[in-house]
């Protein structure tokens, strides 16, 4: 059903505004996309920043917590150790027991490296050293640090509480060493210093044991000096020095700075970036999916609209009684609608793709091809293009179609042939076919079958003629009746008088001659009256002769040709005119001669309607002047001719071969021609070679005086 022309046709039909993508729209769309991407980037950056910052703060908090925990643990252990040390200060404990107890204590608390029992003056009474580590004072002598111990001990004695010394470094054999601190625990007896207990603490061990409370810490812990130098460290990992927390550990008489250094470095960007990318991509994907969904929905809507439009179009083209035909620029038929197929009687498949459509009458194919070529070569006046283009198009030769595009609106008339060979007139309105991109791809024609219209016109004309004839007849009849009445009366009177006279003669008496004379006078009077009536009629008829005037034969033909053509078109008759040069003029009663021409032409056309095949239907009207005084008109047809039996009675009034014929036409024609002093005759078969098989044709010829 939909030919190749379907696609451009849709474009026309739907007439939806094409996305013509002007600059600002493109810019606007890229702006939208840019804004979307920027938003996405900003959100991703922010997310990244927040993630990193959260990670940092968490690491810092962790470090702080570890530092706090370790510091308090260290403090607690120191406090506990100090409590454990207290019994050893008692003077009541004997030396051996002290040794045992010190040994026990040193075993239990590894951070304690050495215990000394000193007297009130600081003299060493007993000494015990841990057995797990190397002896502390081998490379460094004890005496070297004695001032520190004494300072602490004096401070302890004064405050009557244990006090730590400053820390100091104890090198070991083999290069290693350990930072230690000494604790001096004063022994008070009745308010006097009775002696001291000095314990040496290994700071690394203290740190280790404190760290033992936090089994899985990912921090490096160290005691540091105020200047930042490290005294002791613990922990399996090394700190990065990024997340550092410091804590002061208050020990009796001395405080230490504890530093927790997280093993986690700065939060790295790359893994976070990857996450962000994935996130961003999924966001973009979501956006795309949404866009796609919207697009799909719109597409579905468009498809529904298209389907509706298609159904609408289908319904429209099926309901159309107007034939539609589309042709491409080469003249090939690309589309026909059902109404057109029904009109010409061919199936759409027979028509599509043909250059010379089968509905062109065979004898006119050349003419139509020429016409089509000239029409197709024209540029259509598209809304955008300048109008002068079309005006510059070449003039068309064959038919009066100079501007098909312009003429498209008013249309032109031509003749098509149905499948059964019947010719019929059509009215064609053409419009350029423009595809979606505004390119001119062909022509769309609306084709109207005007047969019915012509038929009605013909009918109206025939009725008009018949009416005129009957009006004329009525006039004739009225005149005849008037005339007969006028004549009847005197004749009847004469008859009466004559009868009366006879009666008188049959029975004569004295008065008879007088009566007879009177009666005969009356007869004469009535006879004269009848004569007057006859004379007046004659005068009336003779008066028409005064209307003769010189008329050009061209004018005569011009007056009748439109009517003749109208009739000829109905039967598809072609009319050939042969007018000799210079055009002769005749002296005649114009109206009467026009009637003669009309009559003869109509007879000729009608004689071809039944027997003659349409291609042979031709009427030749010729005017010539064979003699200086006479002009000859001849009408030659290719009709069925006139048989001898008909020829005999042809000019008899009221003789007709047609059922509806009046039988007055030819007799009137002859009367008119003879009134002008001319002659009317005919020949059948017609000389001059118009005859076809079975159609001998007839030539009617009449002469009129030349002017």
């Amino acid at each position, binding site marked *: 059903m939909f030919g190749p022309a379907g696609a451009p046709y849709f474009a026309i039909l739907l007439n939806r505004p094409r996305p013509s993508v002007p600059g600002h729209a493109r810019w606007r769309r890229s702006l939208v996309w840019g804004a979307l991407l920027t938003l996405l980037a900003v959100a991703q950056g922010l997310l990244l920043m927040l993630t990193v910052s959260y990670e940092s703060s968490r690491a810092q908090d962790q470090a702080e917590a570890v530092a706090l925990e370790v510091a308090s643990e260290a403090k607690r252990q120191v406090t506990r150790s100090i409590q454990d040390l207290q019994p050893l200060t008692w003077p009541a404990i004997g030396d051996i027991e002290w040794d045992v107890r010190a040994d026990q204590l040193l075993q239990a608390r590894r951070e304690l490296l050495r215990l000394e029992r000193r007297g009130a003056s600081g003299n060493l009474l007993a000494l015990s050293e841990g057995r797990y580590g190397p002896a502390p004072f081998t490379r460094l002598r004890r005496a070297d640090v004695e001032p520190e111990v004494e300072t602490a001990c004096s401070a302890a004695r004064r405050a009557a509480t244990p006090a730590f010394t400053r820390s100091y470094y104890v090198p070991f054999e083999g290069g290693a060493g350990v930072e230690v601190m000494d604790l001096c625990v004063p022994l008070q007896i009745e308010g006097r210093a009775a002696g001291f207990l000095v314990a040496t603490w290994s700071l690394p061990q203290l740190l280790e044991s404190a760290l033992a409370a936090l089994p899985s810490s990912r921090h490096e812990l160290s005691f540091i000096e105020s200047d930042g130098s490290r005294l002791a460290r613990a922990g399996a990992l090394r700190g990065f020095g990024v997340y550092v927390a410091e804590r002061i550990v208050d020990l009796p008489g001395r405080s230490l700075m504890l530093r927790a250094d997280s093993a986690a470095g700065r939060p790295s960007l790359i893994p976070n970036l990857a996450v962000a990318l994935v996130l961003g991509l999924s966001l973009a994907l979501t956006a795309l999916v949404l866009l796609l969904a919207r697009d799909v929905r719109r597409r579905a809507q468009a498809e529904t609209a298209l389907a509706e439009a298609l159904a609408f179009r289908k319904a429209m083209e099926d309901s159309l009684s107007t034939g539609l035909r589309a042709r491409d620029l080469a003249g090939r038929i690309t589309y026909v609608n059902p109404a057109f197929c029904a009109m010409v009687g061919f199936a759409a498949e027979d028509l599509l793709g043909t250059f010379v459509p089968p509905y062109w009458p065979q004898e006119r194919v050349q003419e139509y091809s020429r016409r089509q070529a000239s029409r197709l070569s024209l540029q259509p006046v598209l809304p955008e293009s300048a109008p002068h283009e079309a005006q510059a198009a070449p003039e068309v030769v064959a038919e009066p179609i100079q501007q098909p595009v312009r003429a498209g609106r008013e249309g032109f008339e031509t003749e098509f042939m149905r499948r059964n060979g019947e010719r019929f007139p059509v009215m064609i309105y053409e419009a350029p076919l423009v595809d979606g991109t505004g390119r001119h791809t062909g022509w769309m024609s609306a084709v109207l079958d005007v047969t019915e219209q012509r038929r009605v016109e013909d009918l109206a004309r025939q009725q008009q003629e018949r009416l005129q004839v009957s009006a004329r007849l009525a006039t004739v009849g009225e005149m005849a009746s008037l005339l007969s009445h006028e004549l*009847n*009366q005197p004749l009847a009177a004469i008859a*009466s008088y004559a*009868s009366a006279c006879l009666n008188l003669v049959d029975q004569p008496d004295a008065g008879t001659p007088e009566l007879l004379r009177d009666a005969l006078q009356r007869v004469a009077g*009535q006879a004269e009256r009848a004569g007057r009536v006859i004379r007046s009629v004659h005068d009336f008829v003779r008066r028409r002769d005064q209307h003769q005037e010189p008329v050009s034969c061209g004018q005569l033909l011009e007056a009748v040709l439109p009517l003749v053509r109208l009739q000829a078109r109905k039967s598809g008759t072609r009319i050939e005119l042969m007018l000799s040069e210079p055009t002769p003029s005749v002296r005649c009663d114009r109206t009467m001669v026009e009637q003669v021409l009309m009559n003869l032409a109509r007879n000729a056309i009608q004689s071809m309607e039944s027997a003659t095949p349409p291609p042979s239907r031709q009427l030749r009207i010729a005017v010539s002047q064979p003699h200086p005084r006479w002009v000859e008109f001849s009408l030659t047809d290719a009709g069925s001719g006139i048989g001898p039996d008909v020829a005999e009675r042809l000019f008899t009034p009221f003789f007709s071969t047609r059922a509806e014929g009046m039988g007055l036409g030819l007799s009137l024609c002859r009367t008119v021609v003879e009134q002008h002093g001319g002659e009317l005759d005919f020949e059948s078969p017609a000389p001059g070679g118009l005859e076809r098989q079975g159609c001998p044709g007839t030539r009617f010829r009449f002469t009129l005086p030349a002017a």
Partner: protein
Amino acid sequence: MTPLDPSLGLPVVYIVDDEDVVRDALAWLLRSRRLLSEAFDSAEAFESAALQRASEHAGGWPSAPACVLLDVRMPGLSGLALFERMVEHGWVPCVPVIFLTGHADVPTAVAAVKRGAFDFVEKPFSNNALVDRVEQALALSAQVLGQRRQRRQWDRRLADLTEREREVMLLVIEGRPNKLIADELHISVRTVEVHRARIFEKMGVKSAVELANSLRDAGREPA
């Protein structure tokens, strides 16, 4: 042609036609056959003249046998319309009408004949044949006129009878003998005989049969 009863008076042919030529010619023709004619140029003129004569003459119109030659087509009152009015006036059986028609008026005239016109003659007419028809019409007119006069005479005679004589006459006509009539009317036979003689005398008859026939012929049944 049977001669007309001279006691009825001279017959008259009335010609009603708007054409004076026709009137004159017809009058001439009738005159050549010894017939009196009177011409009128319109239906109205004829009707008013007839009405006037009917009012002047005691025995009504026409007083003598008459017929009308009537042209169908006339200006003013047409022949057909005049015929209708004559029917209304009750003149038609007594005054027969012969229509003169043109060719086109034949159906009208045929219809008129069906309604009681005597005949129609198509123009141009064969003249003496027309006069023959005129004479037949006059004969018919005379016959109708005679019957009418006789009827009037009988009416007058019946009016002369006394009430008792009328009663006796009805029984006489039925053919009853005097004895039965006397019984019926409770009078003597003698009285019946006297009445019967009086009746016969007054009615101008000689027998009961003649009386009955005469009354039937005259179309007068004594009520």
